[in-house]
């Protein structure tokens, strides 16, 4: 098993390398010149030449890629084009903020989603199951910002319990931080829980229709026992991948939600950089998001190898 896990981790690292190359290709090698985009139509050829040299754009692409990658591995993402500041200094505190918001949401959403999913699989076809089916279908169909604004209208305007803007700053106490970030976290929780509930339900139900579960019922075991002893251990693998998928989804949902609540995280930073066409910042944020995404998927794969003995031996 350790070898299998090491292989999977190695595969994750290779994926990450490929992803970094893809991001680099998209931002640097595709047609479109950063220098003329930044300096605008008034730039003289002389200006352009100097600026390109400053950015190292006069070197061949693969050298720039390795320089960039080398820098990134040492925590140097380069400088922002618009305000000339060191990207890592701005990125790091925002990354921690985003991580805080995402974990806040995940801590609430994962037990809720998985628990309710199992529950509604157990009560398949009853009123509560059909009701939750419609509610969750609506919740996963509507955009995150709609959920966010509804929460603002209800919980910040009609009943002014929470602030509508999630402003966090350095040196803020943990309790206050949690309080301010409640509405954005709640928005994410609603969307993610609905999705997780549906996926968990369908993976438990697909296990429930297998022959060995039928056998267990025919032996005369109680429904609770069949589910706890026979169905759930086998559903653990799929459920873990559902959770990982949803955590990854959380990473993306965070971009929109941060913009609704003006929360100072990586998502807001990235969107800001995109509208200013600040390529190095976009690159850095993109790499961070992709790394978290790939990391989560790798961890999920390793976790399902650990919980499912059948996956431990490579075929």
């Amino acid at each position, binding site marked *: 098993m350790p070898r299998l896990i090491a292989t999977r981790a190695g595969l994750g690292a290779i*994926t990450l390398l*490929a*992803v970094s190359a*893809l*991001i680099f290709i*998209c*931002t640097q090698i*595709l047609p*479109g010149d950063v220098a003329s*985009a930044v300096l605008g139509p008034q730039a003289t050829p002389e200006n352009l030449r100097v600026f390109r040299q400053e950015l190292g754009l006069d070197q061949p692409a693969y050298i720039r890629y390795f320089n960039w990658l080398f820098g990134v591995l040492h925590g140097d993402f380069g400088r922002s084009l618009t305000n000339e500041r060191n990207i890592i200094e701005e990125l790091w505190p925002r990354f921690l903020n985003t991580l805080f918001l995402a974990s806040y949401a995940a801590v609430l959403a994962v037990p809720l989603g998985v628990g309710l999913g199992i529950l509604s699989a157990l009560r398949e076809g009853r009123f509560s199951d059909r009701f939750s089916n*419609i509610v969750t*279908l*609506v919740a996963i*169909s*509507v*955009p*995150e*910002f*709609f959920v966010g*604004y*509804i929460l*603002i*209208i209800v919980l910040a*305007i*009609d009943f002014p319990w929470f602030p*509508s803007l999630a402003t966090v700053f350095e040196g803020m106490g943990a309790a206050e931080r949690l309080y301010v970030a409640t509405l954005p976290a709640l928005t994410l929780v609603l969307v993610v829980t609905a999705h997780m509930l549906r996926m968990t339900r369908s993976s438990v139900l*697909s296990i429930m229709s297998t022959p060995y579960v039928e056998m267990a019922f025919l032996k005369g075991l109680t429904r609770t026992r069949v589910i706890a002893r026979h169905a759930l251990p086998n559903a653990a693998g799929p459920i873990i991948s559902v959770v990982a998928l949803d955590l*990854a989804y959380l*990473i*993306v949902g965070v*971009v*929109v939600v941060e*913009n*609704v609540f003006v929360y100072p995280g990586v998502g807001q930073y*990235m*969107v800001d*950089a*995109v*509208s200013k*066409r*600040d*390529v190095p910042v*976009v*690159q850095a*944020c*993109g790499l961070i*998001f*992709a790394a978290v*995404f*790939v990391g989560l*998927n790798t961890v999920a794969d390793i976790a399902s190898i650990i919980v499912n003995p059948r996956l431990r031996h490579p075929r």
Partner: protein
Amino acid sequence: MTLFGHRLPLFAKVGLAIVAINLLVAIFGPWLAPYDQSQSVGDTWAPSSAQMWLGGDQIGRDMLTRLIYGARMTIGIAAATTALSFLIGITLGFTAAVLGKWVDVALSRVVDVMLSIPQLIFALIILGVFGSSIPVLIITIAVLDSTRVFRLARALGMNLTVLEFVEAARLRGEGLWWVIRREILPNAAAPLISEFGLRFCFNFLFVAALSFLGIGVQPPYADWGGMVRDNAPAINFGLWAPLYPALAIATLTVGVNLLVDWLLSIDARPSGAQAEM
């Protein structure tokens, strides 16, 4: 009421009605709208009245008019994107399935790497480099989305290429295109149709989200995501202005989902376990 020889349950009827109304509004919008889309007819966030049913937007344009014009833009872009994405995804997916060997390996690995970057993040990177315009938006989202279509088309194609009639067509000496078009596509049509609905929903929400973030459709065009963004400050006064376009987005996606849910359920009946794919 029946469709494709199946009775429509209540939820499917609701879904069908929502989709039909939205399509009609998108097509006949300019004739239905009471005002011009860029005409300022009232105060900022004017309350709803007999002249302006849903009130005004952030610069006093009629909200209802903007919604009607926005339907055309938002639904049009999502439909164009999905169509392009299916064209790319199905062609490459079936090609990979039929040719197999290194073509399949190469395409699948590229898709794997593309899928390991979250779609929204990938789109942000591309739009950050090229800047946002409607063609760039459509092509970017279509290419990103085609990776999912590729996966489905390849899986469907893989199951079909091993069947005798495809073998027979190959032995007759038919070319790649003929096999894809005449043997594989007709047999893979049913799951692809319901997938089209799901992908449309996804792309529609995607365009709306990008416009909401300010990097999708640019002003002066009316589109629903951008309208939510522009009217967002009204929320702090307890006004409903940004909720109308958001509600329009939500209704359409719920409608399409209800319809697709039903399509999937009739699709699943004859062959049981096939629905999971």
